[in-house]
């Protein structure tokens, strides 16, 4: 059968893997988001040890490959009694990794808000905490959207690395099918196509979100 017939036939199976890919992406980016904000705030507003720890965390996770991080979680922990499933290890690895990048994006966004606004908030009697919550974060979260969109797409693509530790996501499905019919190249062409479509759809959706929450009159930097 030709390429398109093949594609048509394997699509359902591949879509099963796609669902897992999307789950991996959604869970890990959320983990990364929560952890990332904490790291950014810790780095900027925390005391010496906290700030140093956050900086160190960020440096480590950004300076080492995702694959190695996943391998550590999946193969490195069992000897110590902690046995994670490949799915959980995948989410954990992707999430911890993403947190480091997100922390840097948040930090940039927070720092781009003029210090004057912080001063003004303190001047009317707001505590540091209230200022961060009501003045800094609402703006930072808007400013960070382009970078965050990049990060989401990045996570979507790199969820494929979880294949290496056995997670049943799209790549794994592809390999499985290809191993049966030996048409490796064509199968992965379809896989590539699915990723392309997924990335496009997510990009579009995020663009709409950015437009919705825009502050009138304020131009945000365009992301590439």
């Amino acid at each position, binding site marked *: 059968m030709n390429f398109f017939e093949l594609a048509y036939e394997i699509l359902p199976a591949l879509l099963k893997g796609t669902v897992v890919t999307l789950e991996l992406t959604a869970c890990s980016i959320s983990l990364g988001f929560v952890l990332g904000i904490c790291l950014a705030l810790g780095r900027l507003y925390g005391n010496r040890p906290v700030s140093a720890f956050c900086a160190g965390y960020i440096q480590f996770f950004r300076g080492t490959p995702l694959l190695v991080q996943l391998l550590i979680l999946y193969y490195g922990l069992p000897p110590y009694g902690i046995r994670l499933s490949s799915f959980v290890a995948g989410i954990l690895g992707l999430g911890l990794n993403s947190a480091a990048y997100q922390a840097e994006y948040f930090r940039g966004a927070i720092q781009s*808000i*003029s210090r*004057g*606004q912080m*001063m*003004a*908030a*303190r*001047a*009317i*009697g*707001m*505590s540091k905490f*209230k200022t961060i919550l*009501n*003045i800094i974060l*609402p*703006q930072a979260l*808007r400013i960070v959207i382009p970078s965050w969109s990049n990060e989401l797409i990045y996570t979507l693509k790199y969820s494929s690395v979880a294949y290496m530790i056995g997670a049943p996501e799209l790549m794994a499905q592809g390999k499985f099918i290809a191993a049966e019919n030996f048409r490796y190249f064509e199968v992965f062409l379809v896989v590539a196509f699915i990723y392309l479509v997924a990335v496009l759809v997510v990009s579009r959706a995020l663009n709409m979100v950015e437009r919705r929450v825009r*502050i*009138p*009159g*304020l131009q945000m930097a365009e992301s590439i």
Partner: protein
Amino acid sequence: MPDKKTITLKVANIHKAYGIEEVLKGISFEVKKGETKVIIGPSGTGKSTLLRCVNRLTIPDAGRIWLDGVEVTHPRTDINKVRQSIGMVFQDFNLFSHLSALDNVRIGLIKVGKMEKRKATEEAMRQLARVGLKDKAASYPAELSGGQQQRVSIARALAMKPRLMLFDEPTSALDPELIGEVLEVMRDLAESGMTMVVVSHEMGFARSVCNEIIFIENGVIVEQGPPEVLFENPEHQRTKEFLCKISELYGKSERK
């Protein structure tokens, strides 16, 4: 003997150094309730720093400050509470960019003053009306002119019902034709009895509403006195030179 009750602000012997450079070398003065004092001096003499010490946005190296008898500089003072009684207007306005004019004025009332939303909105609208911007309530800072932004920031400060208003070169970042509207608001405020300390070069304003001009140079008060005295008959040569210079630049004309 001045009645301690009517002294709103008392500043005693403030010293502040940045690195090895000391910008404030022992500043002391008092402001009675309802008075307006204008601080003048060459750039970089620490005038802004001095203002920021008053609400402890900057911590002085030495010296003490009292607001209505409460020591601002004391480490144990609840500074957030004190700041609610002091309103500050900045050279760069510093409006919250993600909030409309109304929200900018309202947020302090709701989050700090713990006022209920409806009451806060009424009060905020009242302050906006006071500065002449009732119809711009829904506009965002990026949509307003500099003069309008500054007036909103004044409304924001006034909403907290402060006992003292601090103005840090409020018109220096404005285009010339927008300065008038802000000075007018400030003039009305002074005439209505607000206690104010203003750092500014606007001599027209100083001459018409302030009780005393304080001239600071090189970190010390060179001279202070009522505007008539300083302009007609200053004690020090430096005062005369400086006043001449800025009068040339900023005009001695009375503003309406």
